[in-house]
C-alpha cells in the first residue's frame, strides 16, 4: 500500500518477495538461461561421447541419464520458463495493464521452479543414478525398471506442473480481464494472442501429465497395475496419456515463439503484420488439432489401422494453419523496407529453419514412412529444428528486441550479428547431418554407433560445440549491455516497432499503466 510510485525494494528481499511482473519476468528469464546452460552442458557431454564411435567418456547408464535430463531440463526448465518470463514482462505492457491479474500467485509460480529443479538435479547424486528412461519416461522403464530416484522425478514433475498451471491461470486472467479500454480481443498484439491460447493448452494438459506421473507413483509404490499387463493394465496406456499431454506440449513451446516472430518481423519490415485475423485463427486451429494427433508419436507401438490412418490425416492437417503462418510472415516482408538487425536475423533464421523442421514433421506424419524413421536421429534432427531453431532462436530474437526497452541500454549490434551467424552455422552443422544418419538407420539414445556414421557424427559434435560456445557470447553481450551498454531513451527503440510497450519511457519504469492508457482512434 502507501505510495505506489516508488521503485523496487533493495537487496535480496526485492526478488524473494516481489509481486512486480517485471521483476518476476526477469527472474524467469535468468532462471531459464541458467537451465539452458545446464541442459546445454548435458548436451555437450552427449556430443562428446558421440564424437567418435566406441565408448570413450561416460558409462552407458550415465549417457542415458544425460539424454533424459537434457530433454527434461531444456523443455521444462529452459524453453517453457523463458516464454513465461517473456509473458510476464510483456503482456501487461502490451495490453495496458498495471501488472498481472494475481501478482502474489505470480511470484509463487516462479519460486517453486528453482527448488523443483534442484530436486530433479539432485537425483544425479542419488543411489542408482538419475532418471535414465528418456524425457518421455515410458513405462515400464520408468516404473518396473526405474531407479528409486524416480520418486523425486515424479514429484519434481508435479511441482513444475503446479507452477505452469498457476502461471497459465494468471496469464488467462490477465488477458481476459486486464486489457485497457478499447483493447478488444482482435486488437491485441499477436504475442498476447498466442500466449492466451498457449495458457489454455497448459491448463488443459498439465493436469493430464500430473495424472500420468501419479499413476506411475501408484504402480511403483502401491502395487497398482495401470501400466502392467500382468494385472490387466497396459504399458501403451502410459504412452497414450503421456502424448495426450506431450503433443499439445510441443505447441505450448512453439506458439509463443510464433507470437514473438509475429511482433518482430513487422517491426523490421516496417509494415503491419499481413493477415492478422488469419494468424489468430491459425493459432487456434493448431491448438485444437494438437488434441487429436497425439498417437502419431506411437505409430510403431501397435494400433488398429483405423487409428493409424486417423492420426496420420489429422497430423497432416496441421500443415495447413502452419503454412498460413509461414506465408503470412513471408508476405509481411514482401516489399517491406527491410533492415537486418540481430532480432530480425534470428527471426529470418527461425523462418527458414522452422520451415525445414515443419517439412520433416510432415515426412514423419506419414505412418508407413514413420516405421523407417521412428526412434532414429531423423526424429532428433526434426525436433531440434523446431525446438532450437524454432523456439530458442525466437527467444533469442525476443531478448535482443526487447532488451533495450527493459534495460534502457542498447546491445552491441556487431556482437549480436556475430552471435547470430555462429549460432546459425553451428546449429546447422550440428543437426543437418543428423537427418542423413537418421535416414540411414542410426538409432537415438544410444552411446555408440556403427562405423559408417562416424564422419557425420563428428561433424555434429563439432557443430554442437560451436553452437554451445556461441551462447557464451550471448551471455557476455547481454551482461555488457545491462552493465555498460549505450543508453537509449527513445520510447520507440526501433522505428518500425508498434504496440503499447513502445509508448512508455525507456527503460520501462518499475510500474507502468497504473491508470489504463487511452487508445487513440487509429488503434481503438
Amino acid at each position, binding site marked *: 500500500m*502507501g505510495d505506489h510510485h516508488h521503485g523496487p525494494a533493495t537487496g535480496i528481499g526485492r526478488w524473494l518477495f516481489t509481486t512486480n511482473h517485471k521483476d518476476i519476468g526477469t527472474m524467469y528469464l535468468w532462471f531459464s538461461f541458467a537451465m539452458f546452460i545446464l541442459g546445454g552442458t548435458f548436451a555437450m557431454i552427449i556430443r562428446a561421447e558421440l564424437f567418435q564411435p566406441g565408448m570413450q567418456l561416460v558409462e552407458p547408464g550415465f549417457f542415458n541419464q544425460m539424454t533424459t535430463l537434457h530433454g527434461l531440463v531444456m523443455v521444462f526448465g529452459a524453453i517453457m520458463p523463458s516464454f513465461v518470463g517473456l509473458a510476464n514482462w510483456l503482456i501487461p505492457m502490451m495490453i495496458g495493464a498495471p501488472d498481472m491479474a494475481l501478482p502474489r500467485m505470480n511470484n509463487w509460480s516462479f519460486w517453486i521452479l528453482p527448488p523443483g529443479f534442484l530436486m530433479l538435479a539432485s537425483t544425479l547424486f542419488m543411489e542408482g543414478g538419475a532418471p535414465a528412461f528418456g524425457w518421455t519416461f515410458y513405462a515400464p522403464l520408468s516404473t518396473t525398471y526405474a531407479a528409486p530416484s524416480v520418486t523425486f522425478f515424479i514429484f519434481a514433475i508435479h511441482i513444475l506442473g503446479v507452477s505452469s498451471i498457476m502461471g497459465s491461470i*494468471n496469464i488467462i486472467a490477465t488477458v481476459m480481464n486486464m486489457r485497457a*479500454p478499447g483493447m478488444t480481443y482482435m486488437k491485441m498484439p499477436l504475442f498476447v494472442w498466442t500466449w492466451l491460447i498457449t495458457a489454455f493448452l497448459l*491448463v488443459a494438459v498439465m*493436469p*493430464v501429465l500430473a495424472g500420468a506421473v501419479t499413476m506411475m507413483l501408484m504402480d511403483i509404490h502401491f502395487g497398482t497395475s495401470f501400466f502392467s499387463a500382468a*494385472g*490387466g493394465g497396459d504399458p501403451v496406456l502410459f504412452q497414450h496419456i503421456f502424448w495426450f499431454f506431450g503433443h499439445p506440449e510441443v505447441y505450448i513451446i512453439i506458439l509463443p515463439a510464433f507470437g514473438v516472430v509475429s511482433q518482430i518481423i513487422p517491426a523490421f519490415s516496417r509494415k503491419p503484420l499481413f493477415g492478422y485475423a488469419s494468424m489468430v485463427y491459425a493459432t487456434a486451429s493448431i491448438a485444437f488439432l494438437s488434441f487429436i494427433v497425439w498417437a502419431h508419436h506411437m505409430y510403431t507401438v501397435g494400433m488398429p489401422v483405423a487409428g493409424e490412418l486417423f492420426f496420420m490425416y489429422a497430423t497432416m492437417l496441421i500443415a495447413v494453419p502452419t503454412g498460413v503462418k509461414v506465408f503470412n510472415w513471408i508476405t509481411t516482408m514482401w516489399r517491406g523496407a527491410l533492415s537486418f538487425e540481430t532480432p530480425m536475423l534470428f527471426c529470418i533464421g527461425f523462418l527458414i529453419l522452422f520451415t525445414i523442421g515443419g517439412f520433416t514433421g510432415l515426412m514423419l506424419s506419414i505412418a508407413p514412412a514413420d516405421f523407417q524413421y521412428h526412434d532414429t536421429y531423423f526424429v532428433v534432427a526434426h525436433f531440434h529444428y523446431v525446438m532450437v531453431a524454432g523456439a530458442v532462436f525466437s527467444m533469442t530474437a525476443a531478448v535482443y528486441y526487447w532488451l533495450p526497452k527493459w534495460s534502457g541500454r542498447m546491445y552491441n549490434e556487431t556482437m549480436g550479428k556475430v552471435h547470430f551467424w555462429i549460432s546459425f552455422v553451428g546449429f546447422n552443422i550440428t543437426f543437418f547431418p543428423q537427418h542423413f544418419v537418421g535416414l540411414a538407420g542410426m538409432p537415438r539414445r544410444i552411446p555408440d554407433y556403427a562405423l559408417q556414421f562416424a564422419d557425420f557424427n563428428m561433424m555434429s559434435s563439432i557443430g554442437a560445440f560451436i553452437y554451445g560456445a556461441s551462447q557464451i557470447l550471448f551471455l557476455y553481450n547481454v551482461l555488457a549491455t545491462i552493465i555498460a551498454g549505450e543508453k537509449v531513451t527513445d520510447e520507440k527503440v526501433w522505428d518500425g516497432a508498434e504496440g503499447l510497450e513502445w509508448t512508455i519511457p525507456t527503460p520501462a519504469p518499475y510500474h507502468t499503466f497504473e491508470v*489504463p492508457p487511452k487508445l487513440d482512434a487509429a488503434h481503438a
Partner: protein
Amino acid sequence: MATTEQAPAGFEKYYVPESSSLAVRATIGLLATVFGAGLLLNDMTFGEPGAASMSKWVLIAGLVFFIFTLASWFRTAIRENLQGMNSAQLGHSYVLGMFWFIFSEVMFFAAFFGALFYVRQLAGPWLAGEGEAGRMNDLLWPGFDFTWPPMITPQEAVGGVDSQPIANNGAFLTQDRSMAFADAHHWYQWLPMWNTIILLSSSFTVHVAHTALLKDQRSKFNLWLGITVALGIIFLGLQAAEYYEAYALFGLTLNSGIYGSTFFMLTGFHGFHVAMGMTMLLIQLIRSMKNHHFTATDHFGFEASTWYWHFVDVVWVFLFLFVYIL
C-alpha cells in the same frame, strides 16, 4: 498511440499488493512436503524396515507449514477485501482464476477416466486375444478372458506370478466381489446409491444456502450451509465404510489388478476432493457464524466453494455411472 494522462471515467484502481513473503513461505512448505513424501515412499518401498520413521517428520512438518501459510494467505486476501481494496475488476480476476482452476481439475480427472475407458474398451479385449492386436494372447496370457469388472487378472490366468512369461513386477490378485450393484433384494445396503443421493442433495442444499444469502437471511444461510457440510461428512464416512468393506470383505485392494487400480484411484481422488470441498465450505460456515462475513453482494469465498462443490458433485455422477453402474 496512447496517452497515460487521463483516467477513463469510472476507473477504479486495480490493487497490486506490495511485496509479500507469502509465496516464498508457501514454496518452503510445498517443497518440504513433496520432498518428505518422496523420502517416505522410497524408505517404505526400497529402504530398510523402520527407515520410514524419520522421513515422515519431514513430510508432516512441511505439510503443517504449508497449510498454515495457505491459511494466512487466504486471511490476507479476505482482510484486503474487507478493507475495500478490491475493485470489481479484481473480483473478476478471482472469478477467472477459480474457473480455470476447476477446469484444470476436470482435466486431472479426465486422465483417470481416460485410463478407465482405454482399458475397458481397448486394452482389456486385446489382452484377451481380440482383434489384430490380440494375437499375442496365446503366447503371453493363455486362458485370460476379459470381462468388466474383471474377476481374474492375466497373471492369475496363467497360474500366478511365477508362471508369467514377462517381467515380474508384483502379484496382482483379484477381488472376490466387485463394487458393482450385486443384490436386488438388499439394494438398500448398496452404499454408492446412498452416496449418490447424499451428494446430489448436498448440491441442492448449498444452492438453498446461496439463495438465502442473496436475500440476506443469515440464519437460514448458516443452517443450510451447515447441512451441506454435514452431508459432506456423511459421504466421507460412508466412503470409508465402503473402503473397509472392499478391503476386509471383498478382498478388493490396490493390488487387485486394473479394476482395483482404477476403482481406488478414481473414487479415492474424488473422495479427497470431497474432503477439500467440505473443508472449504466448513471454513465459509465458520466465517459466517463467527465473523459475520459475506453480504448479499460480496461473498466470493463462499461462491467459489460452491462451484467447487458442484464440480465434485458432477464428477461423482460420472463415477457412479462408469465405475459402479456400467
